[in-house]
């Protein structure tokens, strides 16, 4: 008995030394790898809804958001800079003359760019923002483009979709960072006042929002997701003709694509909506030279998503696997991340963000450390829309997609 007790007596200090060697310490790397932040603004009447996020050269993040303007039909512009740990650094509210900020938040010449419009003239302006928000320049485009709806970076130029309310045209343009429009083509949305009503409502606060988008098949045709021929459609074009190369038609304003990501040639990752239902298509062939309908592409139905859900698609590599990340929002007001194998279209895993308060997705990007940053709206106290950021480390992502 005594020997046993003595053995125990000597064994325990050894164990103590072993365990005390495992001290938990916070490191800068840990703080950057994973965080979850809600950016509060204590103004009761303020609504800040993020649009897009981009990583800056210092490892931090720049967020483009829209904010409610009490005396305007349109939304104002809000910019926020946080550091690599997600800690708030600075914010800027642009003059209320400038409204309707439009993503993407694009990087060119070491600056960040996005489009907005003048509240009175509805003319499109290009905004250049330095990373620290100390230098912000707003310049009108030389061409009289109105109602900017979506933009993306294509090489060294911006591919802008705008709406010409006078001629009732969806206009796709290439814009240089200095504001010069190098190419532009309009596409007829149809005749009649009721045709452009949903488009104008999209720009007005509180109206139904459409997933306008622009892009380009690598080395191939340009495309935009917008109104054409009375229907919310995916339109392919070479920008040389007012007749599209091909169209995937939606269902008036009740159906169409909610997100499109070209992979290669005619292969796409996409999501579509149809009278409230949502379908994810991680591996779909869309012919850019034909006229088809979005209902021709069935996809995976996801009843858990809110009707006509916002969907963002990111192409990235996780744990050595080329992966498509679909980010959307659920009926339980969480942000859902669904991971698909790019090669096969098979679901690899899922992850849900946000509890206790309602959350909506705005954007998802890959970070320099191979993690993911999810930007969204958190309704603090269930009622105040504010920006939220979730940073997920690569190790955690690997666990999500590992089978």
């Amino acid at each position, binding site marked *: *008995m*005594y020997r046993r*007790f003595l053995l*125990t*007596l000597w064994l*325990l*200090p050894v*164990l*103590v030394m072993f*365990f*005390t060697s*495992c*001290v*938990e*310490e*916070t*490191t800068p790397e*840990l*703080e950057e790898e*994973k*965080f*979850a*932040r*809600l*950016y*509060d*603004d*204590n*103004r*009761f*009447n303020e609504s800040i809804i993020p649009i897009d996020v981009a990583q800056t050269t210092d490892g931090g993040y720049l967020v483009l958001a829209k904010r409610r303007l009490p005396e305007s039909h349109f939304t104002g512009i809000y910019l*926020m800079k*946080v550091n690599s740990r*997600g*800690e*708030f650094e600075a*914010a800027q509210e642009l003059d209320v003359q400038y409204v309707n900020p439009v993503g993407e938040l694009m990087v060119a010449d070491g600056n960040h760019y996005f489009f907005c419009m003048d509240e009175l003239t509805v003319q499109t302006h290009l905004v250049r923002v330095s990373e620290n928000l100390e230098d912000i320049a707003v310049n009108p485009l030389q061409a009289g483009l109105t109602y900017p709806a979506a933009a993306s970076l294509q090489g060294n130029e911006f591919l802008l979709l705008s709406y010409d309310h006078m001629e009732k045209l969806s206009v796709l343009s290439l814009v240089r960072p200095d504001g010069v429009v190098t190419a532009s083509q309009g596409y007829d949305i149809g005749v009649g006042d009721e045709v452009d009503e949903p488009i104008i409502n999209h720009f007005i606060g509180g109206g139904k929002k459409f997933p306008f988008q622009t892009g380009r098949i690598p080395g191939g045709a340009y495309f935009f997701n917008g109104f054409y021929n009375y229907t919310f459609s995916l339109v392919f074009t070479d920008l040389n003709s007012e007749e599209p190369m091909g169209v995937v038609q939606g269902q008036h304003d009740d159906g169409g694509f909610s997100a499109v990501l070209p992979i290669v040639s005619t292969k796409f990752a996409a999501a579509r909506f149809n009278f409230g239902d949502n379908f994810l298509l991680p591996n779909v062939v869309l012919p850019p030279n034909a006229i088809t309908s979005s209902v021709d592409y069935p996809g995976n139905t996801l009843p858990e998503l809110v009707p006509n859900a916002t969907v963002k698609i990111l192409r990235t590599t996780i744990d050595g696997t080329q992966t498509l990340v679909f980010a959307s929002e659920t009926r339980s007001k969480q942000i859902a991340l669904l991971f698909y194998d790019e090669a096969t279209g098979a679901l690899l895993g899922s992850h*849900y*963000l*946000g*509890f*206790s*308060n309602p*959350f909506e997705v705005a954007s998802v990007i890959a970070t320099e450390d191979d993690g993911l940053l999810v930007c969204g709206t*958190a309704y*603090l*106290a269930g*009622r*105040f829309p504010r*920006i939220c950021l*979730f940073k997920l480390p690569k190790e955690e992502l690997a666990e999500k997609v590992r089978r």
Partner: protein
Amino acid sequence: MKGLLLIALVSFSLTSAFSQPGGNKSGSRKKNRVSYMTKDRMQREENKFLEKQWWLGLKGGTNLTKAIVTKHFSGVSPANYPIADALKEYEDFKSYGSQVTLEGTFYFRQLSLSLQPTYSRSRFVYSNYYAWSDPENAGHSLELHYRQTQKTEHLVIPLLVRYDITATRLRPFIQAGAFAALLINAGKEVTISGTDYASGGEHEFSGDPIIVGAKDLFAPAFYGLMGGVGAHYHQGNIRLSLDISYRYGLTNIVSPANRYGNDRLAGVGDAMDDMTMDNIVISVGCVFPLRFLGNAYKAVDNK
């Protein structure tokens, strides 16, 4: 886990106590031998008993906790007001916990070396306060109060040196040493309450608490120093004890890698600070001698 631990502690204690020389059956035989001992031999045995002894026993009691922040973290990052307004307010030494301890002590000439593995449950509370208002309309106002209770369970393993100040029947002592605490389990409870002035009047509300398992949010182990005072009272073969100790945590009790690992808590903007944990520990118990028991389980100790 908790049950197994308790059973193990109690079994070890009882086994040790009843496996000593000098049980009831052999008591009568030894009684005769003792009666023939010379006075010198008795004195020598008595001295041996007093000078060198093993003690084993159980004690239990309550504890109070203070969390000491070493680095602030917050899931809520203020964009238009000072970050100091979003910091947590801690309640120090206000929430009661409990502990049960198996004490094994080697005593030698008023000095003791004591190993006291302890199952310890601690609680500490912090709060956040948020408010939204409109300077132009006093009615546009909402206040929210988040009260977060942390409940931790650790196996604390202290190794203490104790000095008996006197060698009397009532022996006051002082003790000091170091400890390691191994996490067994943890949980968090968040209660959200507030006052809404914007929905037609002053309306106070509170929601159902969010209760989550939070073992991953805490460090698997931490260590520190401890010291305290107390007293033993000799009653027959046993010593009754009362002691008050202060456990001074030296290392982080939080797991930095998992700070944002609980989505339910991240959703309400909770992120635990880096912190150490101090405890005031009050215990009562009794210990049994393991050597030189005499007749009828009676110690050869006249004091």
